C-alpha cells in the first residue's frame, strides 16, 4: 500500500499490527530494486502486518519528521514507535524474519 503525509498517522502510527514502511523516491536506483521486493513481501505477510511505501519527494513532512537522509530507508513500526530500521537495499527474507518476529 501507499502511505502519505495525510494517512501516515492513521495507517502507520495508529496501526494495530506491525507496519513496514519503505521510504523511496523515483530518482533512486536502489529504491527501484526495493519496490518489487516490498510488493512481494506485502502479499506474503497477509493480514498480520502492513507493508507499504512512501514517496519522500511527495511527502516531505513525514520524511523530515523521521530524519530521512538516505534512501532506500526501511523502518518497522509497532505501537506507533520505530522498532527496527535499515538503510539500503535489503533482501525479502531478512525483512520477513524481522516482521514475523513482531507479529
Amino acid at each position, binding site marked *: 500500500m501507499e502511505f502519505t503525509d495525510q494517512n501516515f498517522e492513521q495507517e502507520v502510527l495508529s496501526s494495530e499490527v506491525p507496519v513496514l514502511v519503505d521510504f523511496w523516491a523515483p*530518482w*533512486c*536506483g*536502489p*529504491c527501484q*530494486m526495493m519496490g518489487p521486493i516490498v510488493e512481494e513481501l506485502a502479499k506474503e505477510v497477509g493480514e498480520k502486518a502492513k507493508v507499504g511505501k512512501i514517496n519522500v519527494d511527495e511527502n516531505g513532512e513525514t520524511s523530515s519528521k523521521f530524519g530521512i537522509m538516505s534512501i532506500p530507508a526501511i523502518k518497522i513500526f509497532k505501537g506507533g514507535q520505530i522498532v527496527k530500521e535499515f538503510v*539500503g537495499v535489503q533482501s525479502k*527474507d531478512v525483512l520477513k524474519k524481522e516482521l514475523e518476529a513482531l507479529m
Partner: protein
Amino acid sequence: MYDLIIVGAGPAGLGASIYASRYKLNHVVIGAEIGGQVVEAWEIENYAGIESISGKDLMEKFINQTKELGGMIVEGNVNKIIKEGEIFSVSTEDGKKYETKSIILALGMKARKMNIPGENKFLGKGISYCATCDAMFFRGKDVAVVGGGDAAATAAIHLAEFANSVHLLYKEGTKTFEPAWDEQMAKLGKIAASTFTNIASIVGSEKVEGLEYDLNGEKKELSVQGVFIEIGSVPGVVVAKELGVSVDEQGYIVVDQAQATNVEGVYAAGDATTGSNKFRQIITAVAEGAVSAGSVYKKLKLGASKK
C-alpha cells in the same frame, strides 16, 4: 535442468543472458540487486552508442532487452552453489533450488567502507554510499565526497546541484577519474578538491557534523553535514570461493580468455574477475558476459573439449 544459471543481474549477467538467449541456451539469471551497482550512477557518458544516460535508465534498457529476448530474471540471493558430478545445484536465501549444467558468476562488487569511527554510527544520518539516492536531502548543506575515481567525481558533480558547497577529498596518489570530469567541476564552481593522508573520523552527536583528517601530519577538520563515500569497491565472491573457484590475492576471480575459471563448467564475468585488465567498466563487463555465454555455448552445444 537448466543449461546455464547466471548469478548476478548487473551488466555482465544481463549481457551474458542476451547472448545466451540468442544461442538458445535454456537459462535463468538470479540476482539480489537487479541492475547491479550501475543503477546508482547519475550520469554515464562513456558507454559506446549512448551519448549520455543515467545508470537507472541504462539498466532498464538492459533488463527490457534481456526479457524481450526470452531471458528470465529472478530476484534472489544465491547463497550456495554445490557441484554434484557434472551438475550444479544452486540455492537461494529464500530456500529455492535450481539445477544446471553450467554457471556464469557475474557477482560484481560491493561498496568499500572506510572503517573509521563514526562511519557505521552515522549511516543514514549523514553518511551515504549513493549520491544519486541522497543528494536531494542535502539541499543548501555543506558536504564532502571521499574518493578519487569516476564515481567520486560524478557524485561531486551531482551533489553540486543541491548542496551549498562540495568538498572532494582524495587520498594522495589516488586521483584516477577521467580528466573530462575536472572540466565539468571547474565549470560548476562550487566544488573544492584537496588531498588527505588519512581520514581519522566522522564526528557529530546525532548526525554528521564534520570530518577529521590529516595531510602530511597536519590535522584538519571540515565542517560538513554529509559525507559521501566513493572509495571504490571489493569483489563480492563468497559463493565462488565456497565452490572452489580460485581468486587472486586481491579477491578477484581468476579467469582465462574464455572467461573460464579453474572449476569445470564454471565461468565468470564482470568487475569481480581478473579479466579486461581489471578495467571494471560497464562496457568491459558486458563484453565479458558475452564471451562467457559464447564459451558455455561452445562447451554444451558444440562439445568443445576446453573447459
